């Protein structure tokens, strides 16, 4: 059974004329990433945690700030996790539903991490790329500013800020945003220095492409691999940072809460036999951090196959 010669010809023509979709380096990296099982599992876990933070509130009949006076003081025997009472994760010392509070804490912790990483990616990458690309005096001035900012003890400044301007989530975001981009700026600048000497950048310059366009079109996309990896590893460190601030009692204000604040509270009442107050926030905390680390690892392997 042979195909009709004219059909064969038509097929060949079609094969020649049809536009072939190329496989970009991003597509290659995606395939490599999805072959990494630990990273994919972590990504799924992260997605579930994000869903939990977004929609977990609908699973419980309690609000995070409703105090159940019947349970106050009788926490150790009445406030334990149970499906019958509807307090899936038990209650805290004030008789508030821990499930609802963990939902909110996870949400705030994720937000802090993601906002910190976003500021780092946007501000840090652009700042570093501009400094590296223009070089010379501009580079010197811009990077010395970074050095000066880095030499300020940030924990101290942040604590002062929270004390003076009052504790609010906005202040926390501001404080974290202020420091998170510094390291990123250095990394981006270092990478830019190697990329700007590549010939394709020179071609763009010779063609007359505007310097800012060169940075956005040629330098930043080639930086992005390293920036993304660093950003995913930055998210957990931001979460840990926020937890530390909250653990000190300076972070999020009641009745709002974050994982750090919940862990702090749980650790405080550990000896009274209410271990669930520590365990549940801790599980979410550890799962989130680990997942981010594994995803970051997978991304690094996928985007930088040379380094494996």
């Amino acid at each position, binding site marked *: 059974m042979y195909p009709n010669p004219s059909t064969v010809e038509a097929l060949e023509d079609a094969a020649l004329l049809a536009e072939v979709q190329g496989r970009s380096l991003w597509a290659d990296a995606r395939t490599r990433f999805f072959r990494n099982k630990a990273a994919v599992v972590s990504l799924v876990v992260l997605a579930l945690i994000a869903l939990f933070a977004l929609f977990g509130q609908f699973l419980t009949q309690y609000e995070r700030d409703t105090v159940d006076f019947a349970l106050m003081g009788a926490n150790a025997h009445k406030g334990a996790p149970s499906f019958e009472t509807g307090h899936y994760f038990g209650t805290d010392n004030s008789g508030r539903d821990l499930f609802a509070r963990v939902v909110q804490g996870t949400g705030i912790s994720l937000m802090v991490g993601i906002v910190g990483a976003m500021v780092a990616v946007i501000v840090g990458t652009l700042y570093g790329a501009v400094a590296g690309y223009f070089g010379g005096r501009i580079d010197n001035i811009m990077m010395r500013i970074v050095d000066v900012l880095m030499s300020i003890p940030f924990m101290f400044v942040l604590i002062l800020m929270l004390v003076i301007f009052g504790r609010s989530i906005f202040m926390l975001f501001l404080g974290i945003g202020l420091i998170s981009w510094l390291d990123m700026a250095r990394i981006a600048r270092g990478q830019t220095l190697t990329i700007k000497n590549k010939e394709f950048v020179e071609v763009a310059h010779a063609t*007359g492409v505007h310097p800012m366009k060169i940075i956005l079109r040629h330098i930043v*996309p080639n930086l992005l691999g390293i920036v993304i990896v660093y950003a995913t590893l930055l998210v957990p460190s931001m979460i840990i940072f926020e937890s530390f601030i909250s653990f000190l009692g300076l972070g999020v204000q009641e009745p709002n809460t974050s994982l750090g604040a919940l862990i702090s509270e749980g650790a405080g009442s550990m000896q009274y036999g209410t271990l669930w107050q520590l365990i549940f926030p801790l599980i979410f905390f550890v799962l989130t951090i680990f997942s981010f680390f594994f995803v970051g690892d997978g991304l690094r392997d996928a985007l930088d196959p040379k380094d494996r």
Partner: protein
Amino acid sequence: MSAILSVKDLSVTFDVRPQGAWPWTPPLKLHAVSEMSFDLEAGQCLGVVGESGSGKSTLARAIVGTVPTSGGQVNFEGGDLASMGPAERRVHRRDVQMIFQDPLAALNPRMTVGEIIAEPLVTHEPGVSREERKKRVRELMERVGLLPNLINRYPHEFSGGQCQRIGIARALILKPKLLICDEPVSALDVSVQAQVVNLLMELQRDMGLSMIFIAHDLSVVKHISDQIIVMYLGRQMEMATAETLTTVPEHPYTQALISSVPIPDPVLEKARVRPVLEGELPSPLAPPSGCVFRTRCPKAQNSCAGDRPAMQALGNGHFVACPYHQAEEVLAAS
């Protein structure tokens, strides 16, 4: 015929900081190109040859404007490119395009071939619609011998020769007047070299391009050029028509250069005498006084260390920077 490009006394020096120097110590001057002067007629091809480190690429970059000049003029269609500000200069960049040595490194790995070729168009003619742009890219891809259906592919999916064709297409999409080729074929293997050189010659003829063709391989340059300049340590040694330069070179350096090209005939190759150059290229940080070639020149005399030899006209467009020049028939590879 008028000159489309006229370079006068062009010099490029780089500041080099000695290692471990204080910030206030004056930097050393590296003379990459000094006092080059030549004219390029419209529609002609000028070859530039010289060994590695002789300043060929710096010359190209100075004309294109990616390296700042430190003296002299680059007159292109009446205006001096070297003295223009960045904004004014950017307008003129569309008429002077460049092809680079490493074909893959000259293409952004994150962009598709279509985006790469269209970039000059997007930059200088932002009004062109998306369809029109795509149409022009496809036409040009066909013109340089690439299948237009590969428009969405990425550079790493192509061979070296194909990458160089992409580079050529990008350089030609704005229909420039002057094309500067910086060793466009040295990274390619011989059979592909021939294809690319022939493509360039064809395009030059069809589009009326003026070209500056840089290479260290004299036989390639001879094939494509009308005029050839020989450079040594940033200076012009000899300039002549391709025919004259390869058959009756006057400068001792040119003679040595030509006799180093192997002849693909073992009998001839064995029979010929060749002056072999001793030593290395001197440091451009401290070039020899007088004639820079005197340290390796077989005909060097005491007076060579004095003044720098000027370019002497020998008639018929033949210039040589050596007072002791002597025509010598050399057996060149055809």
